């Protein structure tokens, strides 16, 4: 768990900071064109960050960072027959390798979501106040965020956090044929988990919308 979180921290901070910067930049720029009023930028940005971009982008990054890592590790264990060796000694590779990563991934997903949103909001606030001169108090407002945003986001985090290690470990276990096989497995893990995150995100968002959450 420590390794899943720690490795990803700098990575998530970097990508989410740039995401926060760009979202506020674009929102302010577009708002200036349509309505010359920048007061809704902050609340709308924070609300969207919590509900939409936070879980999605953090999950995409986690899929890239951790999914690839899990696939690379289980993949190289598979091609070097270590998985077979485990089965021989009666240690269930799924229980031993996947279950701990599964639980760690769900917890880390939630933690990193909070962390990612905070970093993005901090970066967004920076550009919003300094570049576009929005009042700090106007910008940092939770009026655009509801409790249902938080619940939907939390639900997404749990689902994404669960999906990534399963897909990654599955690709890893199916690796065959030396270093090339491990490369393939890692590639597959990244593509599958990125796509699955986007697909699940769409499904959850649509259902949430229909029920008016």
């Amino acid at each position, binding site marked *: 768990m420590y390794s899943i979180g720690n490795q990803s921290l*700098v*990575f998530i901070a*970097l*990508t989410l900071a*740039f*995401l926060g*910067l*760009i*979202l506020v*930049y*674009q929102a302010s*720029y*577009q708002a200036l064109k349509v309505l010359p009023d920048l007061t809704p930028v902050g609340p*709308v940005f924070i609300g*969207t960050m919590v*509900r*939409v971009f936070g879980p*999605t982008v953090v999950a*995409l*990054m986690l899929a*890239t*960072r951790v999914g*690839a*890592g899990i*696939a*690379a*590790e289980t*993949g*190289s264990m598979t*091609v*070097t027959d270590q998985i077979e060796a485990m089965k021989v000694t009666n240690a269930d590779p799924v229980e031993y390798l996947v279950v701990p990563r599964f639980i760690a991934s769900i917890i880390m997903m939630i933690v990193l979501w909070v962390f990612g949103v905070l970093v993005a909001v901090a970066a967004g606030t920076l550009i919003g106040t300094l570049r576009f001169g929005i009042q700090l108090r106007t910008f940092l407002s939770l009026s655009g965020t509801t409790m249902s945003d938080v619940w939907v986001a939390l639900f997404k985090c749990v689902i994404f956090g669960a999906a990534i290690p399963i897909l990654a470990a599955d690709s890893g276990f199916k690796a065959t044929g*030396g*270093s*090339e*096989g*491990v*490369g*393939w*497995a*890692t*590639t597959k893990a*990244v*593509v599958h988990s*990125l*796509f699955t995150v*986007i*697909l699940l*995100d*769409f499904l959850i*968002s*649509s259902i949430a*919308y*229909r029920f008016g959450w």
Partner: protein
Amino acid sequence: MSKPVETDSFLGNFGRTFITAFQTVGAMTLLQLRIFRSLLAIKNFDYDESVTQLFKIGVRSLPVVIATAAFVGALMVVASGNFVRATGATTLIGWAAGTAVFSEVGPILIGLMFSGRVGANNTAELGTMVVTNQIDALRVLGINPIGYLIVPRFMAMIVMLFFLTAIGDLFALTGGAITCRAVLGIDMRIYWQGILDSNLLSEFIMGLVKAIFFGGAIAIVSCHWGLQVTGGARGVGRAVNDSVVTSAIAIFMVNFFITVLWT
């Protein structure tokens, strides 16, 4: 040579991360220069290998890019749906989804997907060639690996990501249109009209410019990690991992700077 002091402190870790980051960026800049030098030697341009790469990259990534793009467009429509419901301004849906898809979310997500599919694969392929001495085999045959292997990949990735982003944008809008009707219950015509009325040409072109730079960045990052693989199967796996992570960081950073410079 004195052995560097190993510390496990937070600050030690932090410092090491920075040193490694700078070394990586330095090595990638060098690789970039070598690619440009090879590009200048146009007479050595390998036409066959370039066509093979274009074809391979295109075929490998087209389905996944289309599927991703469609769902990304759909996602953007659902996300804007909440605000549309709050304000009742249904005409804004086309503008919101179109702007998001063309200028930011489309290029970024297609880029991430491309890096996962093509960049990762490229790292794995080059890495395997390194571990099995195939790169050295090229050198002893008097063939420059940069000119023969890297330059065609670099060019092919830029060209392909450009076209994939253009195609992906269309599928994203279509995905958005269907979602507009199916999930939001808003007539598709309102959505399409909204897109046409908001004159998004500048956003569309900016997205394509981003694709060119993303393609170049993914190519350099994935080739860099592939060429410096050490240590067998485990090394290849780790290199692929580093490759996709670095590509993602590069995409978000490059994206920010292009938007700021463009607007």
